[in-house]
């Protein structure tokens, strides 16, 4: 039997939220000061590509200022250049740098609003700290003395009392009591949730508010290191560390930049022999056009925006590495309950055994379920009602609750009649213990029915009755059916296309598990899974080189969450689970794992797409600048001017303007991410190569040509 988790049985809330890729003027205005602040060379240094542009811009500025006094170069490579040429180059180089910083600022700005809201919850509040807590004698701290201290002064291990209306002063575990808690400050979900001591729902988060009842909480975080503190750091991007892929890409981009620095530095000595040297401004323009500025400018914005997309979906990734790992996941472990099925099994059929009146069975089943608060119980009563048996709303007699030991629940009626329903073996044992010998033929029939229901993926509940003086007897079975979520099979098919294997984890017996696995379309299942089994499965998968993602909420999930490459902890879960995982889903929606994978992939694709675009751009820029540089000496190079640019100066300026503008044009794409469709790798590659590779070759030809049409109107160009 699996325990039922308080999972909101709704589909992913992702579609309801806007991804927030819109790039508005107000965002730009807010981001502009940041963009200029980032011009500090100590900050620029971290981005080698843009640092080169920065140095180029500074050099061009110095030249532009000095030239009028020194009578600077009026020609370059044997061609006359207009007086304003160096200044124009300098301006557009600065713009290139500012646009790059702007992209990063805008990306960061989107996290700021959320961080501000979170900050409000962090304001110091009054905490009632228990002076000397004695968990044995006075677990509820009813008689203990409490001191009022500021929440900021709470230390790890302090015990506080939180009453209805109070904010929770810090992260902690409930050691006593049960309360409804408003967590909307963190999750955005307005419906209160129940938190109670013991079990998997004992964690409370600082900044949330207790709505009813009284709880005793042991603080589990140090001041300044609370969940909210970490969240603020994450959404602001303050704790952002470069991910391995980002580092690798940065290295490749740095190497490509160095090659072109060498090209630029060696050009004039070589040109000095048979041609004529080009001016420093043209050389800087050549260098900036050739180094991969487009991706260099947008790289960090892409990373921040990727994290932000997760935040938009209410998932907090503890590191960027985890987001990337999500894109690489090859095995997805999914809990059956709440992820694949709705989690609440529904009664679908009453199966009386031979010789029993169906109405007796229905009545007994309904009576014993009246006091059962679970959705299963309610569904039995509802089905009975549909069958025309109305047992009222109050159970007549004493309720026997379900326990893990007895694996049964039931009702003891005032006349001494005992009704029990539960797992087949448990009920049969109960009957035999009551001295029932007459189960013989019924036992075989019950076993057959149990088998049949289990095989179809359902859960069989055996209903029996023991009346005083009579031997107990089996009345029949209730068929509880696990309802597989609509459309889930399609999502698994998508995942398969993406190369991800899905494994369903369930506490059900193998027969039931197999039937549900087949219905949902998962690739594999792990039945009767214990937390140890889960951990073992993850280890085995990783041994074979797979990357494993899973969700979990219980303390016993913690080792598996820590072992998995991507462990998404439910916010409703224990703090142990949240510590162990590398992501926390504030909505506590296990289906979200699929979205996380998608976002991880989208992040990588966006980087790859803009890198390809950036490198492919070089071809057109060469055709603009190379003929321009040496046409004065070698008029034959005009043959390479396939864009028909009006003059060498105009060609160089057009290329540098294009180089700056393309960054702005691509900011929305960097923030929104490239559209991702779940296809196999080959198709995705073909499509992206066509769009960003071929597009990257063609676009600058058109762009530079169009800009030249404008630039040539300026006198002197």
């Amino acid at each position, binding site marked *: 039997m699996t325990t039922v988790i308080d999972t909101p049985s709704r589909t992913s809330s992702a579609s309801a939220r806007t991804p927030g890729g819109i790039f508005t003027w107000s965002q730009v205005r807010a981001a502009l000061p940041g963009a200029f602040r980032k011009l500090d060379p100590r900050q620029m240094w971290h981005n080698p590509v843009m640092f080169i542009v920065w140095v180029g811009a500074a050099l061009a500025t110095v030249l532009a200022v000095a030239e009028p006094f020194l009578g600077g170069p009026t020609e370059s490579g044997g061609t006359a250049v207009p007086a304003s040429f160096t200044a124009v180059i300098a301006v557009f180089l600065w713009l290139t740098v500012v646009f790059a910083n702007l992209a990063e600022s805008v990306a960061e700005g989107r996290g700021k609003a959320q961080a501000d809201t979170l900050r409000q919850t962090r304001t110091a509040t009054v905490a009632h700290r228990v002076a000397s807590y004695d968990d044995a004698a006075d677990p509820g701290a009813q008689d203990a003395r409490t001191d009022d201290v500021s929440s900021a002064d709470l230390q790890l291990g302090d015990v506080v009392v939180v009453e209805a209306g109070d904010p929770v002063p810090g992260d902690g575990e409930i050691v006593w009591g049960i309360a409804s808690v408003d967590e909307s400050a963190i999750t955005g979900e307005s419906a209160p949730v129940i938190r109670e001591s013991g079990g998997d729902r004992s964690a409370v988060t600082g900044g949330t508010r207790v709505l009813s009842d009284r709880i005793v909480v042991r603080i589990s975080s140090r001041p300044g290191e609370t969940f909210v503190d970490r969240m603020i750091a994450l959404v602001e991007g303050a704790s952002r560390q470069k991910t391995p*892929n980002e580092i*690798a890409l940065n290295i*490749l981009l740095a190497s490509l930049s160095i090659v072109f620095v060498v090209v630029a530095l060696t050009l004039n*000595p*070589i040109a000095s022999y048979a041609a004529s040297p080009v001016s420093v401004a043209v050389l800087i323009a050549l260098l900036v056009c*050739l180094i991969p500025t487009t991706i260099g400018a947008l790289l960090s914005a892409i990373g921040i925006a990727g994290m932000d997309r997760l935040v938009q979906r209410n998932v907090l990734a503890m590191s960027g590495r985890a987001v990337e790992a999500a894109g690489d996941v090859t095995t997805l472990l999914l809990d059956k309950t709440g992820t694949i099925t709705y989690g609440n099994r529904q009664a679908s059929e009453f199966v009386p055994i031979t010789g029993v009146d169906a109405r007796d069975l229905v009545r007994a089943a309904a009576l014993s379920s009246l006091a059962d608060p679970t959705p299963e119980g309610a569904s039995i009563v509802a089905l009975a009602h549909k069958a025309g048996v109305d047992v009222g709303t109050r159970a007549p007699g004493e309720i026997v609750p379900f326990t893990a030991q007895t694996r049964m629940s039931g009702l003891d009626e005032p006349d001494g009649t005992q009704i029990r329903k539960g797992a087949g073996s448990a009920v049969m044992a109960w009957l035999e213990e009551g001295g029932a010998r007459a189960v013989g033929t019924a036992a075989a029939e019950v076993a057959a029915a149990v088998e049949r229901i289990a095989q179809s993926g359902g859960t069989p509940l055996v209903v029996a009755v023991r009346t005083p003086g009579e031997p107990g007897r089996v009345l029949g079975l209730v068929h509880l059916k696990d309802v597989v979520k609509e459309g889930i099979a399609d999502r698994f098919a998508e995942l398969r296309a993406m*190369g991800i294997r899905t494994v369903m984890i369930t506490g059900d017996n193998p027969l039931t598990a197999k039937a549900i696995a087949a219905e949902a379309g998962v690739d594999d299942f792990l039945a009767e899974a214990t937390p140890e089994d889960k951990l073992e499965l993850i280890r085995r998968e990783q041994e*074979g080189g797979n990357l494993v993602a899973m969700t979990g909420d219980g303390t016993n999930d913690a080792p598996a969450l820590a072992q998995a490459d991507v462990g998404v902890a439910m916010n409703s879960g224990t703090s142990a689970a949240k510590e162990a995982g590398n992501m926390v889903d504030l909505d506590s929606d296990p289906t979200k794992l699929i979205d996380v994978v998608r976002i991880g992939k989208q992040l990588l694709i966006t980087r790859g797409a803009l890198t390809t675009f950036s490198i492919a751009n070089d*071809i057109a820029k060469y055709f603009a600048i190379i003929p321009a540089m040496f046409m004065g000496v*070698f008029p034959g190079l005009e043959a390479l001017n396939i864009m028909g640019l009006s003059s060498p100066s105009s060609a160089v300026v057009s290329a540098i303007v294009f180089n700056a503008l393309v960054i702005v044009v691509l900011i929305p794409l960097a923030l929104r991410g490239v559209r991702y469709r779940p296809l196999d790798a080959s198709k995705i590659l073909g499509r992206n190569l066509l769009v960003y590779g071929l597009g990257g070759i063609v676009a600058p030809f058109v762009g530079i040509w169009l800009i030249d049409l404008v630039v040539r109107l300026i006198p002197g160009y």
Partner: protein
Amino acid sequence: MGWVWAVAALATVALVLAAVYRSFGDYMAGVYTTPRDWRVERGLYRVLGVDPRSGQTWQAYLRGVLTFSAVGLLLVYALQRTQQWLPYSLGLPAPSADLSFNTAASFVGNTNWQSYSPELTLGYTVQLAGLAVQNFVSAAVGMAVAVALVRGFAHRRTSTIGNFWVDLVRGCFRILLPISVVGALVLIVGGVVQNFDGFTDVTTVAGGAQSIPGGPVASQEVIKLLGTNGGGFFNANSAHPFENPTAWTNVLEVLLMLVIPFSLPRTFGRMVGDHRQGYAILAAMGVLFVASYTALTLLESAGHGTAPQLAGGAMEGKEARFGIVGSTLFATTSTTTSTGAVNSMHDSYTALGGMVPMLNMMLGEVAPGGVGSGLYGMLVMAVIAVFIAGLLVGRTPEYLGKKIGPREIKLASLYILVTPTLVLAGTALSFAIPAVRESVTSTSIWNPGVHGMSEVLYAFTSAANNNGSAFAGLTANTPWMNTALGVAILLGRFVPIVLVLALAGSLARQDKVPATSGTLPTHRPQFVGLLVGVVLVLTALTYFPVLALGPLAEGLV
């Protein structure tokens, strides 16, 4: 009708290579993986004190490569400097220090750049004990490094990438020597000379006196080509009738240059357990080779001017017995591999035609490249292509199940930095340092202007890429050229080897990631196209500005 010959020549070569691809590639894979040693090899291991069964870490492997090459460098240098005391020196004096360094670096670095006229500079002892030995072992070193990288892909979770000494010995004994023996006999049948006669004075038909050089040419010739070395016995190299007498020996020589580089992809496919990966690498090499051959043949056949029109193409600097096609096929082969042998003078090609051999080398000689160096060069490019493509499909890039992370990209990025930096810096320094500029422009360059610039650029391109062919028309036997080119050769050879072996070590340590439908397939035409694109964009584009100052400026009139 020219194009019929062009297609037929290419088809002949392609058919022969296709016929031996599988068996020879598999044979080479067997050579490098079998646990059995030959008796002569066991003897050698005992002398060297090597345990042939023990694997080496990449650092130990690298130490082997560097120590062995350093000893080779010193030996070849010493042999030259003591030439006057050596037997069979034909009375030739010892070459100068800078020339000896250049030649030693050049042969140890599998480059065979020759700043000198061999028949007038080096006696038989230096040619045989120094240069010919290096022709074998430097080729075997290249193959060993390539095989070590392949092992990096094939192995999982190990720190070892094979044993350098075993790879070296087996490459020599089991691959290079047997083919050389057979090849030399066939060449002798074709008319290549093989004797120890020195100079023979003859009276020509017209009555003039002439001194005809002889020598052990056939035995040198075959390893010169097979090991993609390129250093000719004679100054005229394969244009000399004693080295390459007829049209059919010309085709045979082309085949000798191509057979190992074009079969190594099979060896690679076999060792990583997926022949399709080998075919993909082969396809990328083949596409670039055919494109280059087509371009060169078209440009040479369409030579401008009266003489070319009458001759049916630009015949200047080409041998009549080979014609345009025989020359362009040889030139393409020689410069797309790291051979550098010539049967026609590239300097006399049309301006744009002369750019093609230069571009072949600038691509990093990966189509198919030198023995071993072509394969590892192409695999490094594949690593970069996989990285970009991997990002494009939304996965941490992986090639053959190995993740391409920061360390792998760092090594690959440095690899693509090395040669362009050497080529451009070398050329620029030749014109930037006043004293050097004086020497280069007044002594080295015989064709002032744009063409002279091309000659210097060609020289550094050839040296840094370990090709060894010359654009001719450039006097390279000056202290600056000898030293600078020698340094470019050594750095262009050994810095990439350091990076490749480090990459091999880093890959071997990794576990293999199983392929799923989300994995980028690296055996489809799509990837081949991407790989070709990456090679072109990342290497050729770097040289666009200098090419615009040289052959493009000269050719686009």
